[in-house]
Structure formats: structure tokens, C-alpha cells
């Protein structure tokens, strides 16, 4: 078939031009969620750049010999606890031909042997043995100049913070405390203040770009609008007060709400009246039996660390979430729920019940698994259009309200600084 291309109606395969005025944080171009070249650039500049990637909990590699496999962006990674009692991490890629070194999600090992040609690595990721290195019957073998110590998977720097294991490929990344910022560090320590016990792991596959999920977690504006469980069942405490802090980098945030003790009694009375309405009362309110386990009245704290970490405290349900890109259009959200080693049987049961609030079937979170996909599908033909992120003005500073998109703008401030876009 002949297509006549005239100079006035030129047909071109070129995508919409990828433009984004420097410093602009209130308008987000949709190509940022779509373009394949952005995905490749993110691997270099974000995940392998000067950031701390959350890898796993220390509790998941508690004993020497324990290991977990995970990812730093799309780079496969092994986290191992060596016999010197230190935690190491390295690329899960054999130095020979590049095969995965560990094929499962974790376990216990003395060393690792690649299945392909049996090259062998210690728990630090050092190449220790090459099969037939000296050949067989005087024939073959590695070249004279081959030196094992010159070869090995890329090694990560490790930062341990409150039982969290972070990894980085960068020599320029600031120390973890500085990277987190004082307020975020304090709010992590507030939750992770004693030994944790993992209670479950689930992966939720999101049909959207990873940034849409990361923005969603930082977006306090949507919480009471998209998630109507608390309001439908009249559980929202009128006396609830909230706030938000954003780290100086913009990349990390914590939003929180707590009970205003002064007004609590009055509001509970109001709730009592409302719960007379049978239609909107829970049959089994044990779900709401909340213990103030941190002793500060804060019943909800959602915290993020750029580029892939969420710490969740919703009442007594605690979890970390790891956000991993799986191509430009898909994201793996790895949930690890936990409690504390000294939890009483009552607290264990309370957490099991309250886990219904979060996760892939969570009363106040299931929508977040789908809403990124609604955006991704909605903007399918809108690479040249832009999202509006103007709630609460144009700043990225801390706010005493949740009716703001300051932390979403903080994300873009941090992202743009790393990406140079």
C-alpha cells in the first residue's frame, strides 16, 4: 500500500517530544511512565546511582550462612550473612558467562556454585574456584594470565539501619543517617525499635510503572477519598490529627495521624451513636482493637525512602514493602509483614486480624494495587500531556495537613536530581 506523505501532513514515528522544564514539579509529563529509554536510564542513574536500595530485613538473614535473593532495580542481588558475622551483598551474576549464581529466593549456604560451569563463590561474592582451572591431563584450562581475584560479581556497599539492610553500588552515596534525614530516621526507629519476626511474604504485581506506586504511597491527598473503608464504617476518628514530614532531599517522607487525646472521649461517644446504625457497623469490631504499642497515640504512619522502600504501621499491622520495577509497565510490590519477638499471644492475634487492613486484599489498601493501572491505561495515548500536582501549592516542605501533594513533589524533586531529566 502506498502512503503519500506530504510536507504539510508529515507522518512520523517519533514519540511526543520529551520535554520537561527544569525545576517544574507541579506538572508531570506522562512520557516519564512510558518511555523505554527512561527505564534504562533509571537503572543507571537511580538504582545503581547514589541511593540506598532497601534489600531485606536483617531478620531474614539472621544467622551466618543465611542468604536472600532480591533486586536493585532490575539487577539481581544476593544478600548473605557470612561466617565473620557481617552482611554482604553482590550482584547475582556469575563472572564467567553471566548466569544467575543463586536460583532460589533464599536459604542457607556455605558458599555458592554456579550451575552452568561450577564456578564457586564465597558468601562475600569472591570468586574462589574455577572448574578445570588448570585443565585436564595438562590440556585446556584457563590462560596463564587469568587471576580469579580480578573477576567477580559487582559488590554492593551495605548500610544497616534499625534492622533494615540497604545496598548501594555508589561510592558517593551519603551515610545512611544523612540520606534518610533526621526526622525520617527517627520515625523508622520509632517502629523498628526491637527485634522483629517475619510473619508473611506476598508479592503483588502492579500493572503500572513503579513511580505511580511510589507516588501513590506518598500521596496523602487520596487516602480518605479513594479508600472509604474507615469512613463507610464510621471508624474515622474526628479527633484524628495528622501531619507529614519530607526529607531535605525530597525523596523520603513520613505521614502520620494520631489521636487528639482532648477530644477523644467526645468522639468516641459520637462514634457510639453512629454505630447504632446497623448498616454501617462492623459485625466483628475486634479488627479495630488497637493497642497503642508505641505509646505515642500515633495509630498510622506510612514512611517511604527513595527509591524503593515503604515502612507501614497501620494500627498494629506492620510491614515493609519493596517496590521493584519489572519493565516500564509492571511493578512487583514485595510485602513482608512482621511483628516483634516479644509479642504476646494477644498481640499476635491482633496483628493477624489487622493484617486485613493492608496487603493485596487490604480494606484500606487494595485500591492502591489497581489505581496505578488506571493511570497507566488512562494515559496510554497521552505521552505529551501532563499530570497536575498542585494540591498544597508548589513546595515540597513539611505540612501540618494531609490535603497536600508536597511529598509527591518531593519525590519528583529527588527523582529529577538523580536522573538529570
Amino acid at each position, binding site marked *: 500500500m502506498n502512503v503519500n506523505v506530504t510536507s504539510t501532513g508529515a507522518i512520523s514515528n517519533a514519540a511526543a517530544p520529551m520535554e520537561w522544564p527544569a525545576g517544574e514539579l507541579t506538572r508531570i509529563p506522562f512520557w516519564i511512565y512510558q518511555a523505554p529509554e527512561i527505564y534504562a536510564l533509571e537503572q543507571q542513574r537511580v538504582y545503581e546511582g547514589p541511593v540506598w536500595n532497601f534489600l531485606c530485613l536483617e531478620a531474614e538473614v539472621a544467622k551466618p550462612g543465611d542468604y536472600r535473593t532480591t533486586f536493585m532495580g532490575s539487577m539481581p542481588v544476593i544478600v548473605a550473612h557470612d561466617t565473620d558475622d557481617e552482611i554482604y551483598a553482590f550482584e547475582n551474576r556469575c563472572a564467567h558467562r553471566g548466569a544467575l549464581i543463586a536460583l532460589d*529466593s533464599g536459604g542457607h549456604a556455605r558458599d555458592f556454585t554456579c550451575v552452568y560451569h561450577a564456578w564457586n563463590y564465597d558468601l562475600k561474592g569472591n570468586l574462589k574456584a574455577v572448574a578445570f582451572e588448570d585443565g585436564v591431563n595438562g590440556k585446556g584450562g584457563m590462560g596463564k594470565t587469568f587471576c580469579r581475584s580480578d573477576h567477580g560479581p559487582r559488590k554492593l556497599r551495605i548500610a544497616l539501619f534499625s534492622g533494615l539492610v540497604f545496598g548501594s553500588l555508589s561510592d558517593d552515596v551519603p551515610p545512611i543517617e544523612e540520606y534518610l534525614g533526621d526526622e525520617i530516621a527517627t520515625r523508622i526507629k520509632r517502629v523498628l525499635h526491637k527485634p522483629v519476626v*517475619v*510473619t*508473611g*511474604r*506476598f*508479592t*503483588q*504485581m*502492579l*500493572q503500572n510503572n513503579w513511580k505511580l506506586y511510589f507516588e501513590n504511597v506518598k500521596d496523602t491527598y487520596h487516602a480518605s477519598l*479513594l479508600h*472509604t*473503608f474507615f469512613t*463507610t*464504617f464510621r471508624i474515622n476518628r474526628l479527633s484524628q490529627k495528622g501531619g507529614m514530614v519530607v526529607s531535605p532531599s525530597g525523596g523520603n517522607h513520613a505521614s502520620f495521624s494520631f489521636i487528639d487525646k482532648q477530644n477523644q472521649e467526645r468522639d468516641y461517644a459520637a462514634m457510639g451513636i453512629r454505630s447504632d446504625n446497623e448498616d*454501617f457497623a*462492623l*459485625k*466483628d469490631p*475486634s*479488627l479495630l482493637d488497637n493497642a497503642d504499642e508505641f505509646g505515642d497515640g500515633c495509630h498510622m504512619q506510612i514512611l517511604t525512602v527513595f527509591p524503593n522502600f515503604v515502612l507501614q504501621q497501620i494500627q498494629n499491622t506492620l510491614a515493609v514493602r519493596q517496590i521493584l520495577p519489572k519493565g516500564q509497565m509492571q511493578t*512487583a510490590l514485595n510485602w513482608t*509483614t512482621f511483628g516483634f519477638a516479644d509479642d504476646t499471644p494477644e498481640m*499476635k*492475634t491482633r*496483628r*493477624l*486480624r489487622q*493484617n*486485613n487492613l493492608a*496487603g*493485596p*486484599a487490604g*480494606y484500606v489498601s*487494595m*485500591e492502591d*494495587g*489497581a489505581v496505578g*493501572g488506571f493511570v497507566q491505561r488512562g494515559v496510554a495515548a497521552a505521552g505529551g500531556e501532563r499530570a497536575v500536582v498542585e494540591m498544597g501549592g508548589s513546595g515540597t516542605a513539611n505540612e501540618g495537613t494531609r490535603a497536600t501533594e508536597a511529598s509527591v513533589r518531593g519525590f519528583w524533586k529527588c527523582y529529577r536530581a538523580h536522573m538529570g531529566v
Partner: protein
Amino acid sequence: MAITIERILALQAAYIRCIDNDALESWPDFFLDECLYKVTTADNEKNGFEAGIIYADTKGMLIDRVAALRKANVYEKQSYRHIVGLPNITSNGAAEAQSETPFLVVRIMHDGQTDIFATGVYRDTYRAAGNDLKIAKRIVVCDSSRIDTLMALPL
């Protein structure tokens, strides 16, 4: 009256029909007042991790889940088609029976997209009171730890 395989089959057939026909309001009635319904994964079971994707230890919590799905939660219109295999009855007394039954659940979205959503086994404990057979415990053990998008409807 012993808990025969016929009674277990009849209950299972009615259970999946209830969910697949969007009669969720009747779903809690398959359970005793004091029950355990949990959706978990083979990996979590193997590791001894107790948390569920869904966890209800009373019938009231099941009723609340249906109410939340109807009144509060937002999800695209979708339905399931459950295919259950033959129950392997692991113990069978006059008042209580236990079985393990493989299942496959296909999820059909409103636009016609049809995917295998979950496979696994139901690990069940049934209790009989006269002619009535109810589920005392149903642990839904999914083979995979991956859940696509969200889990709104129960398995």
C-alpha cells in the same frame, strides 16, 4: 449421620457456585460462627509464617468482608470461575472431617480479559450438626506467592 464424601462434595459445589454467581452475601453461611478462613501461600506455610492475605477467625469477620466489598472497596467489575478437583479426605468421623482439595480460579474482568488468578489447595475441616455441614476451618493455600493487582473477591 457420617460425613460422607457426597456431603463434602455438595458443600464444595455450593460454595464455589455462591462465589462465582456473585452471591457473596451467602458466603459466610458456609462457615461456623467460630471458624478460621485464611488465604495464604505455599511459601508462607513452608516457612511457618502465620499471616494471611485474608484472615477471619469469626463468621462476623467474613460478613464484614462482604460488606466492605459491597459498600467500601473500589475495584473493577470482575468475576471468578472456580474449578475444584477431587477432595482427598484425610480424616472422617461422625462429627468432623478433614480434606484437601485442589482448586483453580480464573478471573474474568469486565472487558473480557481472562487469566488464571490462583491455583492451590483448600485445607478444610468440616463439622456436622445433624443434617447441617459447615466449614470450621478453610485454609486456602495458593501455590504462587504472586497476586495480580489485588484480591477483592474471596477464593
